[in-house]
């Protein structure tokens, strides 16, 4: 194949990828403005589903639960994951390979296996101690435990990429452990910490399977609510909330892009 042909082929693939990524989203957005309650016919433009959304308490509380769960779990995962990542780096000469595999495992495990395992475990604990009845608490624990490996690995790979002499230099300059953490470690790790917390946040917001198995009566998240609501078909109300989420994600993405540009410009 000529270089020209290859380039054209790649271009076609690029556009195909975009179409399959964004056309389904476009359909959701379009039907959220549908005047009638139908997933098949578009009868006219209206905002009625957005108005209905505002009055839907169950949906709004599910949204609140989703955000609370995502924020709290990703912050805890950030803290614990960073510690593990640092520990893995710090003790890497001790042949702790098996420990690393142990951390990888939840990454590879299908969500459903992990969710059922968590559920069974919580049920047993509750039976024995009365603690850990399904609810936001159990969901946070479950989410943190699948987020930690991601944070740990991101932090670990950032540390491995650093020049080892930097650590010695910080020590040579008589920095106290606290100062070293504040002025050297945290600033150097910042990109890893930021991507770790955002990744955890997204994973938590997205998750349905694990949440489903660990949730209680008052902790339904948005994905759980939507799952419960689709029995009667996907109502335009759900299209409306999906549209709002797409808009929110797009805003965040654009914001982080601009932030990154600004920083790059300054640096």
């Amino acid at each position, binding site marked *: 194949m000529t270089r020209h042909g290859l380039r054209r082929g790649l271009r076609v693939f690029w556009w195909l990828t975009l179409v399959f990524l964004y056309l389904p989203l476009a359909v959701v957005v379009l039907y959220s403005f549908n005047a009638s*309650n*139908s*997933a*098949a016919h578009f009868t006219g433009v209206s905002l009625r589903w957005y108005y209905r959304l505002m009055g839907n308490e*169950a949906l709004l509380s599910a949204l609140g639960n989703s955000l609370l769960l995502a924020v*709290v779990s990703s912050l*805890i995962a950030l*803290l*614990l994951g*960073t*510690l593990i990542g*640092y*520990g893995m780096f*710090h003790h890497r000469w001790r042949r702790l390979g098996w420990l690393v595999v142990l951390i990888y495992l939840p990454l590879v495990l299908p969500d459903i296996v992990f969710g059922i395992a968590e*559920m069974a475990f*919580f*049920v047993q604990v*509750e039976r024995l101690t*009365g*603690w*850990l*009845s*399904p*609810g*936001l*608490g159990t969901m*946070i*624990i479950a989410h943190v435990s699948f987020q930690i490996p991601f944070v740990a690995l991101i932090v670990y790979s950032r540390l491995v990429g650093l020049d080892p002499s930097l*650590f010695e230099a910080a*020590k040579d300059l008589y920095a106290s*452990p*606290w100062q*070293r*953490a504040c002025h050297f470690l945290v600033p150097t790790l910042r990109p890893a910490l930021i991507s770790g917390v955002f990744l955890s946040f997204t994973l938590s917001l997205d998750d349905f399977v694990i949440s489903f*198995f660990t949730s*209680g*009566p*008052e*902790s*339904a998240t948005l994905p759980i609510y939507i*799952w*419960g*609501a*689709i*029995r*009667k*078909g996907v109502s335009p109300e759900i299209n409306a909330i999906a549209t709002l989420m797409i808009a929110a994600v797009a805003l965040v993405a654009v914001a982080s892009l601009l932030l990154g540009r600004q920083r790059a410009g300054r640096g």
Partner: protein
Amino acid sequence: MPHSFHRPFLRSALSALPLVGLMLAGGAQAADDKLYLFNWTEYMDPAIIDAFEERYDVEVVQNYFNSQPEMLAKLNAGGVSQYDVIVPSNYYVPRLIETGLVQPLDKSKLAHLGNVMDTFKDPGYDPGGDYSVPYQWGTTGIIYNTDTFPDAPKSWSLLFDANENPDYPFAVAGDGQVTMGGACAYLGHGYDCIGLDAWREAAKLLIEAKGRANFSGFTDGTPALQQLSRGVVHAAMSFNGDYLAFKDEDPEGFANTAFMIPDEGAEMWVDAMMIPAEAPNPDLAHAFIDFLLEAEVGAQLSNYNYYASPNAAAEPYLDEVLTQPPVQPSDEDMQRLRFIPSLSGDELQIFQQLWSEVQAR
């Protein structure tokens, strides 16, 4: 080596532990003034919930399930001590009683229990009605496109006889007992057939039906209705009440459709209210069940759902559409309706084996 390097981290990690502990303790126990209702999706008039909340000055927290296995899984996963009222269907009732997941009702707390229709006072699935109070009842029949089948027979042959429908796509229900019952009825064993021989024959029939080019799939009642309105299938199994609710919302899409109860027999089901064994607030649960037994509330529920009311006292308040077919079947059709038998032990195992074979082949 910088041995002390990690200490500050460790300390801050430890200081975060009490926070985690707080989260575990918080939300573990339900408040006294809350009722936790675990119900099918879209099966409750929000106005009834408002009225109950107002009368008893409590809050009702609703949770939804899409299938009974899903509900059972949730109960086993700690839900047994988290929900006050659940709404399973008749053939799950014995299973819940046998496994000890529900508690007997205190009939002295149900002042309006007398309103229940005689048909449902001593049902086969819960002798004496000791554990359950009926919520709504309905039928599972065949819904078909009247343009495609202007002279449709009142029979399961519309689905199972290739000569009756050689070309147009059709679906059967994904719920094993519902579909096997239909096949049994078509074969003359009755809708509520039990036993290896009858089931085996029914499974064979279903595998044959699956092999036809116009077999569209195993589709449960509600999605089946959507497929019918879009013309994806031309005949399928679904519920009378959901059919009317869908038709009401999209009259155009369902203009040329009809609901039919096959003469060989079909399913009649009851969804019943029960109280989990360790419900946090059984008193309030009884109050809620009794509230729904009141004549006007019972009627309001049916008027909202398009399903028949098991509440005899509700009759004068029912909308007209609820007093005629397909909600209220004709007397002849009534004779042909059967409950799905509740299976357990070996029977259940054999049935499930046959059903997975039907699905796998």
